[in-house]
């Protein structure tokens, strides 16, 4: 699967693949992101934690342009995010994959066609080639035999794994995971997290908003605690979970144990 993950990069190794500078975002008068600075290195796995309303999902959605921000700059693979330019957005979104809480598979297409759609349309890949890639990716997430199934015939965990395969088919440099296990029954969470973990092991750059603290602790290189629209605390998981410095993080972590 190395071919899928070693997408060509325009950034020298060691340089940040995502660079966010002084990013501010408001909904009307309500400022939800109050100046975010963040650099994500290639191959880094970052978990974003925090209370609901702290702006963590909004931050993630800014990175692939689902949300527009008013101030600041954001580059992916050294390409700036420009909302006004459809061509620039299309370029950027090919480098950034996203997986959603509610899977968002296309219900009218088979699992295989879900995975093949974007590569054939956007990358103009020939059908047989796209199909071979889709079969490989579905095997990769343990769903080789579901190629011809419809999404509504699958369990939530299976649907989310198809969504991961679909995102990987575009060979993104960064994968954004927005609470991808929150809509799943508890017994299905493991199968999805195992796939994410294997992606992390293979060197995929991951940014994930998650409520699975054990998972964040185990897989991530860096944990970001967001509070009231700012990066409140940031560091290696052992440090952040082991000895939180700010009272807000202490409170947040202790509230999880109640």
């Amino acid at each position, binding site marked *: 699967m190395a071919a899928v993950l070693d997408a060509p990069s325009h950034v020298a190794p060691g340089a940040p693949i995502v660079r966010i500078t002084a990013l501010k975002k408001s909904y009307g008068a309500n400022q939800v992101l109050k100046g975010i600075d963040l650099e994500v290195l290639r191959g880094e796995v970052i978990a974003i934690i925090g209370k609901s309303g702290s702006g963590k999902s909004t931050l993630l959605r800014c990175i*692939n342009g689902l949300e527009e921000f008013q101030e600041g700059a954001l580059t992916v693979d050294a390409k700036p995010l420009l909302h006004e330019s459809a061509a620039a957005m299309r370029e950027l*979104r090919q480098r*950034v994959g*996203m997986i959603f809480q509610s899977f968002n598979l296309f219900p*009218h297409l088979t699992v295989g066609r879900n995975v093949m759609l*974007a590569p054939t349309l956007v990358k103009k890949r020939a059908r047989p080639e796209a199909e071979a890639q889709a079969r490989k990716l579905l095997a990769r997430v343990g769903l080789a035999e579901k190629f011809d199934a419809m999404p509504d015939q699958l369990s939530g965990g299976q649907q989310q794994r198809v*969504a991961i395969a679909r995102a990987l088919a575009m060979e993104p440099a960064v994968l954004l995971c927005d609470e991808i296990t929150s809509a799943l029954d508890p017994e299905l969470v493991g199968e999805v997290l195992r796939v994410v973990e294997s992606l992390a092991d293979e060197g995929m750059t991951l940014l994930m908003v998650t409520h699975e603290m054990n998972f964040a602790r185990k897989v991530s290189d860096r944990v970001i605690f967001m509070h009231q629209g700012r990066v409140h605390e940031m560091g290696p998981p052992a440090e952040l979970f082991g000895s939180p410095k700010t009272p807000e993080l202490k409170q947040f972590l202790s509230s999880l144990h109640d």
Partner: protein
Amino acid sequence: MTEFTLWDILRNLLLALRWTVVLSLIAFVGGGLVGALLLALRLRGGRLAERLIAGYVQLFQGTPLLMQLFLSYFGLALLGIEVSAWTAAAVALTLYTSAFLTEIWRGCVAAIPKGQWEASGSLALSFGEQLRHVILPQAVKIAIAPTVGFLVQVIKGTALASVIGFVEVTKAGSMIANVTFRPFTVFACVALMYFALCFPVSLYARHLERKTRGSRP
């Protein structure tokens, strides 16, 4: 004075029924095309396009079809444009149909969850690709039943074209009633003909509704 048999009545009504069918088809095809164009403008265009089209929809939904027919027949003539009853009826029904269809279809597109736009957008699909490959295939499924249902309204609506002198089945009916002095028989026949046109369409709409509902989770 000549005697009219029931067959004479039926034959003449059936001949006029052709024009009811043709007018319905024109209204539906023309209205469908204009409605689709307005839908595209509405989805793509900015706030101004949205507002203008919403106004257009309100105008045609908020006035009787009868007035729209009068206005297109007499109004255009006032402006110096000579229109036949044919053209006036076709134009008025096309615009009327387009206003209703664009509104029905807009609702169907709006019923597609936002996540479908977001997922297809983050896979780098362009607006056109999103619409064509993700949104419309799903929207069409839910649009079929209300669209076919509206066709029934249009078929019955063509009866109003008789007031501007267009000879379709209703107008033919009143003309025949005047010469035969058998209005009840004639209009009963006319009513039955409308029923024969509309009932199968309604049945088909119901069938489609059941089918699409069945295939949804």
